[in-house]
């Protein structure tokens, strides 16, 4: 009976149905959690670079947000770029005030850089160097700029710096509007 032709087909179909039903259940339970988490993580990463803002309104999907105060006035923008570091893309989040100066930068948690080295890009001393700078000042010292590179992690340092620069050139036009 187990090896009959009919059972062969039925057993396969049954397995597929059971698997599909089980997975759709798992999916419907986990999907909202995954979405919430993504939304929360995004909000947290944006507030980190512009804590004064009360709301973030998306200007371009996934890349630029308008940072508004409680009254709804734009106090700056936050933009996101993903330059390539050593281990893969590094997400760089840049906050700009209305004059085009950097309020702070953040490095995304997706950083797959060398733990302890590239990851130093997330440390405050490296990120704080960007505060208050304008586009022309953002470059590593060895590239005639003002930023100290992380020792032994030049590629990561340069990736972050380039990402910040690119974010400013690409999105600062939103500030003038």
């Amino acid at each position, binding site marked *: 009976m187990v090896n009959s032709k009919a059972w062969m087909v039925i057993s396969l179909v049954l397995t597929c149905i059971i*698997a*599909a039903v089980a*997975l*759709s259940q*798992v*999916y419907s339970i986990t999907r909202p959690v995954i979405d919430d988490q993504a939304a929360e993580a995004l909000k947290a990463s944006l507030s980190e670079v512009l804590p004064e803002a009360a709301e973030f309104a998306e200007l371009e999907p996934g890349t630029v947000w308008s940072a508004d105060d409680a009254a709804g006035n734009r106090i700056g923008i936050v933009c996101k770029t*993903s*330059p*390539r570091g*050593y281990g893969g*893309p590094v997400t760089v989040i840049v906050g700009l005030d209305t004059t085009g100066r950097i309020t702070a930068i953040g490095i995304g948690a997706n950083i797959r850089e060398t733990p302890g080295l590239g990851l130093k890009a997330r440390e405050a001393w490296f990120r704080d160097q960007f505060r208050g700078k304008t586009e022309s000042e953002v470059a590593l010292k060895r590239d005639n700029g003002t930023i100290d590179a992380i020792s032994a992690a030049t*590629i990561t340092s340069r990736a972050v710096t380039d990402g910040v620069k690119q974010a400013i050139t690409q999105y600062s036009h939103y500030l003038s509007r």
Partner: protein
Amino acid sequence: MNPAKILMGAFLVNNIILMRFLGLCPFFGVSTAVETSVGMSAAVLFVMMLAAWVSWLLYHVLLLPLGLVFLRTAVFILVIAGLVQFVEMVLKRYMRGLYSALGIYLPLITTNCAILGVTFLSIDYQFNLLQATLFAVGTALGFALAIILFAAIRERLEDAPISPSFKGYPIAFVGASLVSLAFLGFTSLFGISL
């Protein structure tokens, strides 16, 4: 994204074997001779392109519109396994020459995680069909480059005086480490980010 960058990125910068660690089983299993490595590479190129097309179409035409993305893993692995068997049958029947060249490598490909990995990555990177194709071609060429280079090294290792406990796999790993070190030099080549 720039097509040339996708191709070069998959070929050198993020070499599937030496940088991404996918497809290690055939890499170590088949790379004992240059000749078999060439055969395996050709089979991988062939199947990888087919798999990229089929999986891309399935995902964007069927799974995504129907809201069945959670079946991705199951559908892809079954389709690739089926595809390989189908290709083997077609080749055997209509293209004897190609079959005798690639035939023995085809069954090995079903369990090659590089093939499935490429189909998943194409979706994670949100490639369109052209980009997915280029990505598959670049990856397969990268696979070929790594495995053929490495086979040439292993052929020489055969006669090298190596301590018995390091013969075979251990010295192959150390050799792979050195080849991989060379590929590390391609990091950030042309500013490719993938």
